[in-house]
């Protein structure tokens, strides 16, 4: 597992990447707990907790806290995923020490005030309503819901209008106490700071954290419904549609991950990949056409995304399905595998271009307990793969027949009939866009 530059007296690992190129420092505080801890029916709790924390520490109003950060020349965001929360900021070098004090204060002793909570809830609810303007986000939400079913990964990190409405301030306070404990934390610093200064500043700011267990909660393994299932998000007057098609992907640390990356790159990861070539370059049906391989502590999604014009929607979905089947049935050619490998190996220097980029794999590796050489040996691991390794890995991990298909479009009867009669489709559900 990646080794930290140092640990705080309470054992919090701190990873560093030093670069004196620019007078800026990036700071990351990762809490290795995320929205999976949201109780059923109170989805969105962890995100509300993060957002309420961002409103400032005890004894400092939100307004004063924001003024302080802006005056330091700093940015600070707190984001939440299923498996982690991330407090992330950048600051001009000369203000690093006071900035770290502010981050630590907001992490350890946030105000979590009633007045701010009431406003935040109203804001979160208003934003969920505004989501209706964003077709891509609506389709993605529908896709995850169909793919993961009752599994925790189906639950949106930002919650729903109903679930956010049920969250109380007491829930938020309890959630903060549950999350912000020394054994859950991981700190990263990248940029213009020496290890000596970093250790001094971090130890001064991140002391007296609560203790706790290192054992992380584990979601059960997701399972898909068998067959192909379509969810059609109905939105009026669409000239263009959004299409997500996918199945279960990978667990982080899967020994075949590199083979899967090569397979996905050749199928839909670049501009010359099969998917883009067939959908956009040859037919012009969609401006974008990409596939994405997700991995988390449990199997995440593999998905392909396009946004064809309304007139081309059915043809595009059918083409995507046939491309997918062909990929799994016949595999990639030797030339495709070779091209994808070459691209991944040759482009690797860009993953290491800046201090921030170099820090990222260290944090990721520690978070997921990956072996030391997982990232360092990336080019060698990719280079060693043969065509059969890649095709076998893809067939072994992706289901040919169990697929979730989420489409956002204007749901005419003709469209519904056409989607229902597409290859292997067992069910079609229509959801009005404002009920997602």
């Amino acid at each position: 597992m990646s080794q930290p530059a140092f640990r705080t007296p309470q054992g919090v690992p701190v990873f560093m990447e030093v670069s004196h190129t620019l007078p800026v420092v990036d700071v990351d505080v990762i809490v290795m707990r995320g929205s999976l801890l949201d109780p059923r029916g109170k989805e969105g709790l962890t995100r509300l907790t993060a957002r309420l924390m961002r409103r400032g520490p005890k004894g400092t109003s939100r307004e004063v806290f924001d003024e302080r950060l802006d005056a330091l020349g700093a940015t600070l965001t707190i984001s939440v995923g299923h498996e982690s929360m991330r407090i992330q900021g950048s600051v001009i070098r000369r203000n690093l020490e006071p900035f770290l004090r502010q981050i630590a204060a907001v992490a350890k002793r946030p105000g979590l005030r009633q007045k701010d909570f009431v406003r935040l809830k109203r804001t979160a609810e208003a934003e969920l309503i505004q989501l209706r303007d964003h077709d891509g986000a609506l389709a993605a939400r529908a896709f995850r819901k169909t793919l993961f079913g009752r599994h925790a990964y189906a639950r949106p990190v930002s919650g729903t209008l109903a679930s956010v409405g049920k969250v109380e301030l007491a829930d938020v306070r309890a959630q903060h106490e549950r999350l912000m404990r020394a054994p859950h934390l991981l700190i990263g610093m990248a940029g213009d700071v020496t290890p000596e200064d970093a250790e001094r500043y971090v130890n001064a700011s991140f002391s007296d954290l609560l203790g706790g267990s290192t054992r992380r909660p584990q979601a059960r393994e997701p399972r898909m419904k068998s067959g192909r299932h379509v969810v059609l998000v109905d939105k009026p007057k669409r000239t263009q549609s959004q299409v997500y098609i996918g199945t279960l992907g990978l667990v982080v640390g899967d020994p075949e991950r590199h083979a899967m990356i090569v397979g996905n790159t050749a199928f839909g990861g670049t501009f010359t990949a099969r998917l883009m070539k067939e959908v956009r370059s040859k037919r012009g049906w969609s401006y974008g056409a990409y596939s994405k391989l997700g991995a988390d502590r449990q199997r995440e999604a593999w998905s392909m995304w396009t946004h064809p014009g309304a007139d081309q929607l059915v043809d595009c979905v059918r083409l995507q399905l046939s491309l997918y089947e062909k990929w799994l049935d016949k595999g990639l050619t030797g030339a495709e595998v070779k091209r994808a490998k070459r691209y991944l190996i040759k482009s690797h220097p860009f993953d290491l271009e800046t201090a921030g980029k170099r820090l990222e794999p260290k944090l990721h590796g520690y978070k997921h307990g990956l072996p030391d050489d997982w990232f360092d040996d990336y080019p060698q691991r990719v280079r060693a793969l043969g065509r059969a390794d890649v095709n076998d890995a893809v067939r072994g991990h992706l289901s040919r027949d169990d697929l979730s298909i989420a489409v956002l479009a204007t749901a005419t009867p003709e469209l519904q009939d056409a989607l229902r009669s597409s290859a292997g489709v067992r069910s079609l559900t229509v959801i009005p866009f404002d009920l997602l």
Partner: protein
Amino acid sequence: MSKGFKSEGVVPFGATLEVERWRLHNELAVLLLRDESAPVISYHTWFRVGSRYEEEGKTGLAHFFEHMMFNETENLPWGEFDRKMEAAGGDTNAATWIDWTYYYESLPSEELPLAIELEADRMSNLLVRKKQVESEREVVANERRMAVEDDVRGKADELLHSLAYGERHPHSWPTLGWMKDIQGYRVADCRSFYKTWYAPNNATVVIVGDLDRDETLARLEKAYGHLRASKLPARPTPKRSRQRKERRATLRWPTPSEKLLVGWHSPAQAERDQAVAEIVHDLLLGGRSARLRRRLVDELELATRLRGHVGGLQHAGLFDLWVGMREGVAADRALAVIEEELARLRDEPVPLAELEKVKARSELFTISSVETMGEKAYQIGYGETVLGDPAHVFARLDELRAVSPADVQRVAAKIFRPARRSIVHVVPEAA
């Protein structure tokens, strides 16, 4: 040293780097910045042509051509450009705006010769035939559907620019072009556009990264030296928009809440007042403690989204504000607050502490905007193309640092005149 190139001096780029200016005999401008911090390079080609050089009826042609440039050339079959780039581990794309079009490649350093070869080739050898035009037409139409036809912000933006500039002004039409124009491009239009604007005397090549100067110049001369300069048409300055009274439009849209897009005429990028306008923008919208953000989003809870943008163009542009209202809240309420805050900026000097806060943010964002090789190349290319100064990003930071409370009052009074504003009001349409 390459004989075909003439040195045009050196420009400091921040505290430790410098940009070398070179000019080839056919007037191709080359800007080199050596940075050995990573074994990669960024290769940009900036053409001084954007949507404001188009004619009515042929709008969007500059952007359309950006797509065409990834097609086949006399030397390279269809798809080969991208295949070669990917085989080299490269990332390539392009963008078009009102004043410019640029193309970039990010590559491992040892692949610099490939970027030179392919960019020089497509500057003069592109095949512009019916097949290529037709295949890109549908892609661009789909891009427009994504960005405008089904997107409330995209649609409102188009409407605002039409209102603010009037129909004939070249800033009034969208960079993507009107759909009817996209559907109507002829092969001859495309050939003429290419022949006119894609020439060495209308381009600047920017290379940033781990490079050897003499070897790079020699390769550039070999690849570009035989290209002929084109006869560039005159580039008239767009007539200033003579707006004398407020202009308004209503857009009915399937959206859950009202929206407001307001635009005022703002200075050209080179003017010092544009630096002041950028500070004004940040006082209103930059960071969570900014005035409008605090009042509209936090205190009064009228809006969920607030975005602003100011100019950035060679000639006068727009200072615009986009407000996404909460469900059931009338946009007029936000407009009243905006008017109050603009009046405050005009009537009361900004406290020095508040001004310093905004300047600290500007410093962070300026430094962060030149972190990667690609970011440096972008800033150099943009600065050179729009302002003739490759280190503009640092010159602007100095100007921002010098802005005083009196500057803020003066520029706020100049820009935010009610008679010089245009408003698009988005109203939810029943599903």
